[in-house]
């Protein structure tokens, strides 16, 4: 009887990946908070998780043999943020908002990590038969 890691780890593996990708995106927003014309971007976590639940990997769906698959590290579609206070130079980064989102994302990343780590600890326990 083989252990299926996909079943054992559940959604947390993909959740952790999305958190990491989102942190990169938010870091880019913060880095470009003074760049004229830069548009802030973010991921829709709910939609991505829904995709993952429906069996699709985090990437393009392959419905035809001729489709080229995207690797799992590819960035899902990032959406542009609607600015609350648009600035004259065309920059839509709200530094406070991005900072808050980044901090929250870091915490959620930790949560996903804890869940995933718990799964691994459980598996190790089962293997050892303790």
């Amino acid at each position, binding site marked *: 009887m083989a252990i299926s890691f996909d079943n054992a780890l559940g959604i947390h593996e993909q959740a952790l990946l999305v958190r990491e990708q989102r*942190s*990169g995106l938010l870091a*880019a927003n913060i880095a470009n908070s*003074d760049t*004229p014309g830069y548009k802030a971007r973010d991921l829709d976590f709910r939609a991505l998780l829904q995709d993952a639940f429906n069996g699709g990997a985090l990437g393009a769906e392959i419905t035809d043999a001729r489709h080229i698959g995207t690797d799992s590290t*590819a*960035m899902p579609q990032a959406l542009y943020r609607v600015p609350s206070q648009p600035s004259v130079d065309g920059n839509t980064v709200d530094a406070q908002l991005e*900072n808050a989102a980044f901090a929250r994302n*870091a915490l959620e990343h930790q949560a996903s990590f804890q869940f995933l780590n718990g799964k*691994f600890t459980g598996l190790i326990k089962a293997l050892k038969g303790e």
Partner: protein
Amino acid sequence: MSLGSIFDIAGSAMSAQSVRLNTTASNMANADSAAGSAEEAYRARYPVFSSVQAQALRGDFQASGMTSMGDAESSVRIDGIVESARPVEGRHEPGHPLADENGQVFYPNVDVVEEMSNMISSSRSFQMNVDVMNAARSMMQRVLSMGQ
């Protein structure tokens, strides 16, 4: 590798902000440097920021299509330093050793108040990127300890 690229992105922003802080320092230091003609007078300098696709920075944007990670994450680049187009300030100071035949001395077009606000803005942005880097570091450390 998303967490790893945060270091590049935040690092590029920190270096860009430090260039901005450098121009501010230069402008403030020269705020009262007089010159004998309008052409010689010091003009306020400002960096122009632009965002670079992280993937283009790595040079492999042809390898994977434009829909992948690289076109979403961008670091900051300094396109160049521009001099302010504001007219320099001419003052009538016949006693000044640099005064021209009309007794005019030219002072830089540096607005000290503007430079101060630029300084605060850039140091805040710098700080924010340091925070981002620290957060990314602890996230990475945590992931490295997985399964232990």
